[in-house]
Every structure is written in C-alpha cells, then in structure tokens.
C-alpha cells in the first residue's frame, strides 16, 4: 500500500508483525516439519498406517463441523435477535464447554452416557455404544459449538438493523428476511466460523483420545506414536499431513467467499432497533438453549459431584478431602500459573490478532495472503507439535536466562491467535472503508485511524479473541506438556497426572477449581472491560 512508504511507523509495525510470525509460528514449526527428513517421510507414507486415520479425520471434521456450526448459529441467533429471557445465564453456560480441560470432561460424558452410564443405563436402562464415531461426533458438537457461537454472534450483532427493517417494511416475513438479508450478510462470519471450527475439530485430540476407542484420527495417531512408542519421526509426519489438510480447508474458504462485499457498518450512525421476531420463535429459541444448557450443566454437575465424593459413582459418600488435596503442596502455584499465563497470553494475543487482522484486511501490500494463512495455521498444528517446536527452537543455551514461563506464554499467544484474528478480519469486512478514510482525510495517520476509530468499533472481535485465547490457554495440556518445568507447572498438567494416577476425585476437584477460577477471572475481566468501554465512549 502507498501508505506504507508514506507512513514509516506503519511499515515498521507491519515488519514487526511479520517478524513475530516468522519467529514464533514459522520457525518453531519448521523444526518439526523437517525433523523426519525425506527418508522418514517416504518410509512413513509407504507404511500406509496414516490412511485410515486420515479418512476418519475427514469424516469427523465434516460431521462435527456441520452440527457445531449449526448449533452455534442457532445459539447466536437466539442471543442476538430474540428477546428471550435468561440471556446472561446462557452466555455463561455457552462458555463452559470451552473451559473443559482434556480428559476429565470427556470422561464425565462416559460416566453419564456410557454403557453403564448414570443417565443411559441408570434411568433409561439402555447400554449404548458411545465409543467411536458417534461418541466423538456428539462430544465434539458440544465442545466446539461455542467457537462458532462466539464468532457468529459477533458478526450478527454488527449486522445493520436498518437493512432488516427495510426488508420487513417492504413486506418480507421474518423467515424471508433471515434467508435473504441476515444470512447473506453474515457470510464472512459464517465462513470464518466454519473454517475455524473445522480446523479446531481437525486438531482436537482430547475427545477422540478418550471416547474414540479404536476410531483413530490423525491427532490421536500422532500423539500415540510419541506417547506409546516414542516414534517422533512418524508423529511429525502425521503432523505435516494435518497442516496440509488445514491448507486445503483454507483454500476452500477463500473460494467460498470470493471478493464480495459484506459491509454493514458505514459512516452513518444507526440507532434503529432490530425488527422483532415472533414470540413463538423466541420461545422456541429459549427452549432450545435451555435443553442445550441442561445437557452442558449435567456434564459439569457430574464433575462437581465427583469432586465432592470419595469414588463417584461407586462410593458417593460426601467428602472435602479432594479439595483439601488441591490446596496442598505446589497445587496452588499451578492454579496461579494457569490464570497468570492465560491472562497475559489472552491480552497480548487479542490485541496482536486485531492489529494483524487490520494490517491484512485493510492493506494491499504483496504477501498478505501468505501472512493471512500463517496467522490461521497454528489452529491446525496439534498442540504437542507446537510445544515440541517451541522446545526445539527455544531451548538454547544462549536463551537459558529467559524464564520458562515466558516461553509458555509466547506459545499460548501464537497457538491461539487464529480465533481472534479470524474474528478481527470478519469484523473488519463488515466495516466500510469510508470510516477509515474519514479519519485519514481529516489528517489522522492510518495507525491513528486504527487506534481511535476502528479499535473501538471492533470491541466485539477483541472480546472474542481475548475470551477464546484465555479459555484455551487455561485448558491446554498438549502445548505445555513439553514446555513446563516444576516452577511453571499449570493446572492441566496436574489434572493429567491425577487422571493417570487413577485419582478421579482429585482430578475432578482440580478441574472444578480450575474452571471456577477461570470463570471468576472472566467475570472480573468483563467488569473491567465494561468500565473501560464506557470511559472510551465518554472520551469519543
């Protein structure tokens, strides 16, 4: 862009972002990709053990993405368009599945819905087979719909009510408005939601590992090659296959949304309310959200009950020993590290993602497509390889002075950047360039236009980036498993250790403590953000 040469600070900022991406996404990942060597790849590909997992992965991604996005859209629509009650409650419950540390939550599903599950067998006398494809599909739908919901709700809430009002005034019914106005205008958000959800499902390891049985997908294969057999070469090759798949998804998405315009926020102010939806629809949405929330709460309820009993479900004597255990030794440090790392990573990641989204979406400099892909790519890298890449790249003698906590935070920042980035790009595509131009023609630099004009409008995208990065950082096991040191242990590592120790009570108590702390932190952030936004508006 011409602005680059005219605005040295902008050029510097761009170079800075490129340098960060090269140093913290590309460089560590290259370490993993080159590890097997050409012979290693040839041997592994010829071995053919990857074919079935590849097929399974594709199948799971297609099924789970469809249902997760559908559910996420319904949830988002209900939250943004209807005047149903209990919205704050649903908003909170909608975040819960994002807050599920691997292993424990999937185990709670088995406890409830397994062959001798409390619900399936205890109430209905059924012995369903939830292991395998069906189980993965169900659990992933619940686990990943919140991603889609967050991204879609952000886009829907930014859509212009005037267009919908106009359509209604012209005689269109609610369904027709939805189909011909709302849906098309939310396409960038939908595209971003589908792509992000699909890539995260592709990369999901925890759920298939616990509930998949023999149904192996690529991430579980990669993981088991390392965990069961120490076969790093094969595992790195599998990881590369995953990257290739992510690239394919990315290209498909590029084709999907072509070069159309989705602008719904222009320079002119809009204060029109959304057209009301029929009360029947509101109630239907309420019922749907209630059912979904009920299911989610049941799963977390099982965790809470497990945490307060000796050996749920065989011995349901009430006890607080599990929580006493959580309070002993260095467990408190692990919980503190979790929250501190998550907060720092989320704050940096969200702002960086928004800024990078602006650079890519608003710029016209060469190579922005490449940067675009590189910023989405981390979503497709299984966490263990992100961690191994960081360990290989940054465990250097000359870096020994750097506290390991910083490396962990950096890995969380860049591993989680895709959601915030996708949200920022989707948001920006709905904002008319005349808004930036108004600022620049009044003499503001582009950077200032970003800071003072776009940044406030994109608060929603920023929130999406912050919240998802925070919850993923708080719940990730796979990234930190290769990076943590005794003083930088986090809650998920402790939970993993307890699960392997067959200490179900301790593991669930730890999970409950972790989730509660994370929710408390999110509530504090929400309060702080509200104060901040009010201040910002007063200033503007």
């Amino acid at each position, binding site marked *: 862009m011409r602005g680059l040469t005219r605005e040295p600070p902008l050029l510097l900022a761009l170079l800075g972002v490129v340098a960060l991406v090269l140093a913290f996404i590309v460089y560590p990942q290259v370490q993993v990709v080159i590890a097997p060597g050409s012979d290693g790849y040839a041997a592994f590909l010829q071995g053919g053990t990857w074919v079935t997992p590849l097929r399974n992965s594709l199948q799971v991604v297609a099924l789970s993405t469809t249902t997760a996005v559908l559910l996420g859209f319904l949830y988002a629509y209900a939250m943004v368009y209807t005047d149903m009650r209990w919205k704050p409650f649903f908003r909170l419950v909608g975040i819960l599945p994002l807050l599920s540390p691997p292993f424990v939550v999937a185990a709670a599903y088995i406890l409830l819905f397994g062959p001798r599950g409390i619900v399936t067998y205890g109430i209905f006398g059924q012995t369903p087979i939830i292991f395998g494809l069906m189980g993965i599909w169900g659990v992933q739908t619940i686990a990943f719909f919140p991603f889609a919901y967050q991204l879609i709700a952000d886009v829907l809430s930014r859509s212009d009510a005037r267009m919908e009002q106009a359509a209604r005034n012209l005689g269109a019914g609610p369904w027709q408005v939805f189909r011909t106005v709302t849906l098309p205008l939310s396409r960038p958000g939908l595209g971003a939601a589908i792509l992000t959800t699909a890539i995260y499902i592709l990369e999901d390891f925890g759920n298939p590992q616990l509930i998949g049985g023999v149904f192996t997908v690529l991430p579980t294969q990669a993981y088991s090659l390392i965990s*069961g057999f120490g076969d790093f070469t094969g595992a790195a090759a599998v990881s590369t296959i995953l990257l290739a798949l992510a690239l394919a998804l990315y290209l498909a998405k590029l084709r999907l949304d072509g070069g159309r315009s989705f602008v719904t926020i222009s320079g002119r102010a809009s204060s029109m309310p959304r057209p009301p939806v029929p009360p029947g629809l509101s109630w239907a949405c309420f019922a749907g959200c209630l059912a979904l929330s009920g299911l989610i709460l049941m799963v977390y309820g099982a965790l809470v009950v497990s945490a307060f009993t000796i050996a749920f479900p065989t011995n349901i004597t009430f006890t607080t020993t599990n929580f006493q255990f959580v309070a002993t030794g260095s467990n408190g440090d692990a919980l503190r590290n979790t929250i501190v790392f998550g907060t720092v990573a989320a704050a940096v990641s969200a702002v960086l993602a928004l800024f990078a989204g602006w650079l890519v979406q608003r710029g016209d400099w060469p190579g922005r497509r490449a940067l675009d892909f590189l910023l989405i790519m981390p979503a497709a890298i299984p966490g263990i390889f992100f961690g191994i890449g960081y360990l290989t790249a940054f465990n250097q003698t000359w870096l020994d002075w750097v506290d390991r906590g910083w490396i962990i935070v950096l890995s969380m920042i860049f591993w989680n950047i895709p959601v915030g980035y996708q949200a920022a790009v989707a948001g920006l595509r709905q904002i008319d360039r005349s808004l930036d131009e108004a600022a620049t023609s009044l003499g503001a630099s582009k950077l200032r236009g970003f800071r003072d004009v776009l940044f406030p409008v994109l608060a929603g995208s920023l929130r999406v980036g912050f919240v998802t990065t925070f919850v993923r950082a708080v719940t990730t096991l796979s990234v930190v498993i290769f990076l943590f040191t005794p003083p930088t242990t986090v809650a998920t590592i402790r939970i993993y250790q307890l699960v*392997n120790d067959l200490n179900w009570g301790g593991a669930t108590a730890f999970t409950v403590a972790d989730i509660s702390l994370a929710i408390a932190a999110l509530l504090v952030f929400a309060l702080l953000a509200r104060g901040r936004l009010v201040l910002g508006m007063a200033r503007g």
Partner: protein
Amino acid sequence: MTPQLDRRAFLKLIGVTTVVAACGGAATGPSAAPSVAASVAAKATGRINIYSALNESTNNELFAAFTKATGVGADVLPLAAAGELQTRIRAEKGNPKADIFIGGDSSFHDGLGKEGLLEPFMSANASAIATEAKDPSGNWTGWYFGVFGFVSNTDRLTKEVSGKKPKTWDDLLDPAWKQKLVMPDPVKTGGGYIFLATQVFRFGKDEDRAMDFMKKLHPNIAQYVGTAPQGIQLVSQGQFVGGPNWSHDILTEKAKNPGIDLTIPDLTGFEIGAVSIVKGTKNLPGGKALVDWILTKEAGELNVKLSNRVSVRKDVAPAPGAPTLDQVKLVTYDRAWAADNKERLIKKWQQAVGL
C-alpha cells in the same frame, strides 16, 4: 571466588563425604567394596533434575527419601508418560535440562541410549540384578517390574460370567465374555502393544497362532481404549466387566474401590521399569548417587509401598495382593524383537481383527 567461599565449599564437601560414605556403606552392605561407595559419594552433592514417569503419588515420598539418604536435592518434573519424557529429552539434546530419566519401560530408555543421549553407568548395586533387566552397555538399569494382569468388576463378574476369573489368557475366549472386556489399544498404548507381543511370545513367536488368538478375542472386546488407566476406570465404574491391564494400577484402584479384583493369568507380559542418566548432565555424581540409591533395598521397599510395583530385588517383598516374581509365570519377552517388529505386528493385528 573468595578464599572464604572456597573454604566453606570445601568443608561442606568433607561433611557430605563423611555422611554419605556412612550411608552408602550401610545400604550396600558389608559385601560391597567400601572404597567404591566412598569414591561415588565423595562427589555427590548439589541438586539434580529428575524427569519422572512414575505415578504422582510415588514421586514426592520416593525422592524426599533419596534426598534424606544422600543429601542430594531433587527437582522433579513429573509426567506419568514415558513417551513424552523421552521425546522431551530428545528435543532438548542441544541443551539438556534433565540429569535423570526415571520410570517407564526400558524400551523408552533404550531408544535414547542407541541415539547416544544417555550417559552409561553401571552401578555396583546392580550386580545382583538379572542380566535381562539391565542394559549390557550400561545406558539404563532396571529397578522394578510392572506385570500385566487382569482387572474384573466382581459384581458383574459374578452375575454375568459366573464369577470365573481367567487363569490363562485363553480363558478370555469364552463366549460368556462377549462384548464385556475392555483393553488398552495396541496401536495407541505401550501396554496394549505389550499385551499383543505377549501373545506372540506365548506361542513361541508363532505369529499366526497369536493373531488367531487376537482374532478370536476380538468379539469379546467391547472397547479398545486410548490410555491404560482408562480401562481400569471403566471396569471400576462397571461400564465393562473386565480387561487386561497393569496389575499395579489395578491394585491402586482397588484400594479405593474394593469392588474390583486383580488376577494374573499365566504367561503374562511385563515391563522393566528403568532409570538412566542423561548425557550432558551437569551433576554426574548426583545422578550416579540416585541410580545407586534407587537400587537399594530401602528404595525398592519404598517403591513397592508407594506404587504396588514389583522390585527387581529378590529381597524386597511384594505389595499385599501383588504376586512375587516366583509366583507368576512370565513369558520370555524379547524386548528388542518386540520393538523392531512393532509396526509389522500392529498391521498384522489390524488385518486379523479387521480394523
């Protein structure tokens, strides 16, 4: 360095030498040459970094006892997953952070040793250990056995399989077990693969007979799970009736839920829990002190108490309910062969059962 510091360090060294020499002498018994113990102990001081694949509940007490016995401090990185620790040590080879790698089957250690990432050390205390439980080149030393057993849910076993626990693995082919068993996936878990390889060794490396067994067993397996402890958990919950699994973990779960039981069918497989010193260690004497100590009777007994595993030392009694090595019939398990033929066997198994 000031002369004063020098002197303090010197005095400390003298003190440690005296204390540890005394301990070493007592622990290794009169037969061990006192000069060896003293020369090792003379340098053992400071702290060591331990990458431990042992259970959570074992780590704390075990290494606290080590520090108490030797004066060497221990910083433990606990991760009950030997494969992850192995990968970590490999990824860190340019700038090693671990001094000791402990726990997990010897094959995880052996892989590192073959890549030259371990520091060979033959402890004087290892002399009494059977040759197959230690590396001839000294890269690793075995110090416990994990035996593969069978977990059953007593209530469901009585009602549905007429209470018959398997005496041999072949007993599991009984149609009464149809869709009632759960076992670790041979593809995803080290334990599951040990079970598969055990069958091959049980039939004297007659792979066709072994695969025939696995094929007939398949209809009785309701589920192959991705981690071994999950199998025990599911039987404990009553989701399934029984399954092959690690006997020490079964005993750990049984302490919490008496409704399950352990049996050890004949000709079963096992892991050799190993310890090794990582090449590039900054505290070699400290690492050697740990290997020496972990092979003592005292450490063996403590580990049995904490983890229910079986010591390599014949003079260490097993945990209550656990078998001694004389009581169980183990297969002749060819570890090197099992590692080299892994991919081939797994593929053969997948074809046999149609997965």
